[in-house]
């Protein structure tokens, strides 16, 4: 990449980061509106089963829910400007500290899931494209249909029953190293493998019909070279898009998978916050996940630029 290209990318990144600020403010506003308009009052969950009106009022005052919407929202923006997400209504713990502790676990899980999904998905996609009509293509096709159709919770529970309860190979829950991450990562990877395989297969097939491939064949290039350096490289754009989206969604917390396998990540944390109506936790998770998603999309755009020279990241001048 040229020095000019490097500068352009730096400007691009800077711009995307600047755009992130108003985006996050808009997201906080919309989320805040939604949370406040939903039925249910967190105070009733906080006060237990035998609350006096006095206790209810005192807690309302404490968490600020007795104030009007705009003043509550302004208070929250003030908190964010001070660099924190506030404290959980229930545990009184600093939400930012908890998110900082849980985000690395979610990242680990997302990386592990992608480490399984990308090679398996691409391999399956290539088999489906290059061996069309064969027995192995049909097997791969069945697997991918199953993978996209089966709900994650079912796959997770089945994986737990087989690998933990019956075969006793892997622990059913917990957060930690390889043995703990294997099952949730596999569960998360199944739909991603299927989607990747189907997209990769379609994309490769489309590329194979293009004129430059015929030219490459006419030039006498070996089928392997054509497949790897011409067809697959050309077919990568939609694949990278899928990888970016899947990875972004995993980083935003795989709620069901993390809950089933007791993985101490941001998805489970958000889920607990939603169940308890713990607004600071929910808002903290939404903001973090939005930022992560935007960053992932930005990285995907940058990768496009490297894969396909026709896609140019421009600095917006003219």
């Amino acid at each position, binding site marked *: 990449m040229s020095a000019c290209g490097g500068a352009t990318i730096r400007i691009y990144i800077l711009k995307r980061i600047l755009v992130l600020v108003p985006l996050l403010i808009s997201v906080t506003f919309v989320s805040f509106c939604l949370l406040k308009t*939903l*039925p*249910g*009052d*967190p105070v*009733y*969950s*906080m*006060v*237990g*089963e*035998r*609350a*006096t*009106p*006095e*206790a*209810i009022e*005192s*807690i309302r005052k*404490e968490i600020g829910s007795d104030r009007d919407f705009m003043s509550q929202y302004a208070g929250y923006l003030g908190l964010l400007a001070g660099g924190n997400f506030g*404290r959980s209504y*229930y*545990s*009184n*713990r600093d939400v930012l500290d*908890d998110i900082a*502790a*849980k985000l690395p676990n979610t990242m680990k899980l997302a990386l592990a899931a992608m480490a399984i999904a990308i090679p398996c998905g691409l391999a399956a996609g290539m088999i489906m494209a290059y061996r069309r009509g064969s027995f192995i293509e049909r097997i791969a096709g069945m697997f991918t249909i199953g993978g996209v159709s089966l709900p994650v919770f079912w796959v997770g*529970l089945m994986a*737990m*029953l087989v690998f*933990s*309860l019956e075969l*006793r*190979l*892997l*622990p*059913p*829950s*917990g*957060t930690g190293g*390889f*043995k703990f991450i*294997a099952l949730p990562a596999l569960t998360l990877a199944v739909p991603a493998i299927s989607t990747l395989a189907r997209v990769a297969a379609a994309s490769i097939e489309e590329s194979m019909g293009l004129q430059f491939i015929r030219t490459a064949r006419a030039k006498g290039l070996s089928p392997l070279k054509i497949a790897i350096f011409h067809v697959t490289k050309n077919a990568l754009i939609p694949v990278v898009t899928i990888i970016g989206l899947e990875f972004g969604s995993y980083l935003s917390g795989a709620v069901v998978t993390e*809950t*089933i*396998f*007791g993985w*101490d990540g941001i998805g*489970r*944390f958000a889920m*607990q916050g939603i*169940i*308890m*109506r713990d607004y600071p936790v929910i808002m903290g998770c939404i903001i973090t996940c939005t930022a992560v998603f935007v960053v992932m999309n930005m990285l995907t755009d940058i990768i496009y630029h490297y894969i396909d020279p026709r896609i140019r990241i421009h600095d917006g001048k003219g």
Partner: protein
Amino acid sequence: MPRLTFALFRLAGLALLFSITSCSPENRTNDYLYCRLNSNPSTLDPALITDVQASVVAAKLFNGLVGLDAGLNVVPDIAERWEISPDGLTYRFRLKRGFLFANGREVTAHDFKYSFERLLATATKSPNNWIFENVEGARAFREGRADEVGGLKALGPYDFEIRIARPFSPFLKMLTMTPAYVVPREAVIAGGPDFASHPMGTGPYILEEWAPNREVVLKRNERYSNPAAHLKGIVFRILPEDLTAFTEFELGNLDIFQIPASAYSKLRNDLRRKQYIEVLPGLNTYYLGLNTSRPPLDNPALRRAIAFAIDRKKILEKFYEGRGRLADGPVPDALRSWHLDKDRGPVEFNPVLARQIVADNGFSGVRLKLYVAADQEAVDIAEIIQGYLADAGLTITIRQLEWSSYKQAINNGEPDMFWLNWWADYPDAENFLFPLFHSANIGPAGNRTRYANKEVDRLIELGQHATDPALRNRAYCEAEEKIIADVPWVFFWHKTDYVVRQPWVEGLKVYEIYNMDKGLDVSLRRRNY
């Protein structure tokens, strides 16, 4: 290529071997008991605790003046003995000497004064301050008219006195509750808001680590000798999913497991496990609440028809797999010291009579809203009830809401009917009468059927303030019979819980109230795998 394949196989083999060795039950801290919590404890500050999960953990970290024994009798805890004045107004406690906080400081009467005043202080925002609302001077203190609570007195380092404004029979039992535990002032001040997540108490265990949503780890408090715990520690693993927890138990990664409905038949019929199941007849009542405050359910005839229309016994046996005892009234049998006149209320299933009442009173086709929380078991029960009431000529619409919306709706009296349960906080019949049926508690304080009967109010108050146990029982009995006759609830059952332990767990006792287990009975036998 074959070499690459061979290397890959070797790598996979090694990974497999690693996973096999690492997921065995031995991969745990020795002499620590592994238990399950369904959800993350909300807080570990006793003044703020309202949930069962937090109470279960806090019981191991803190102590109060008094506790409960297996027979639900009040027994000494930090208080060595106590006296109640003949007028029932003054409670004088003599504290044990040498009872230490985890920081090594001795507990004194001043600590109790501080802890109880902290609970009452508006700044603490405790939802549990009602426990001490009868204490003399509590109101003036809360309203800022006094600097201290006059009714709480440290008479000396080991003598503590509580004066209440009116005789209040359940008061001593209320002192066994989680919010009445003693806390050290210096740790509360130093911790600030973090005291809730880094608590310090006097209990047999000390908090070693709390990883929210993952686990709470307690280690033995070596200073505690009241008596000392057998275990080196307890690990509470937070596992919301029943199947995950069941799998962990089957693998030996949990030592004790409260059996959920989904695993009940499997474990009860498992010959290997059957002998290790402990039965716990809980102090609770499951009920269908009927909103008595507005038409059409303000009419007792319709409420009686609903009670006659539902075959509770069949639902308990067939759907609930017999995991409970049929309820005759709101008060669980273990807390009832009187005999009920059962003929007063509609306790038997009588669909013919139900249909007749509905038809005679012109209720045919009446539409009623039944609210349930987002819980599959509750929804299933609601559908069964819907079927029975349809047979009686009533049209029921079920509305399922998530918990906080559900609480808000039932607190505001939105539904005609709702499915709910009530668990004892302290072992006294009053706990099942006053909050649930006294008209002063309509709404979030417990009386969600908005039931108001002046005679019942009077009888409950009479029982609360009676110093003579016979008079108290008579008042409560009469109140309960009137409640049964008025049918603000359809009384379903008192749920029985089942706890299964691993063969290597010894001395396990199960208790009726969640904070009774201080983790002192259990020990772990050395295991051979």
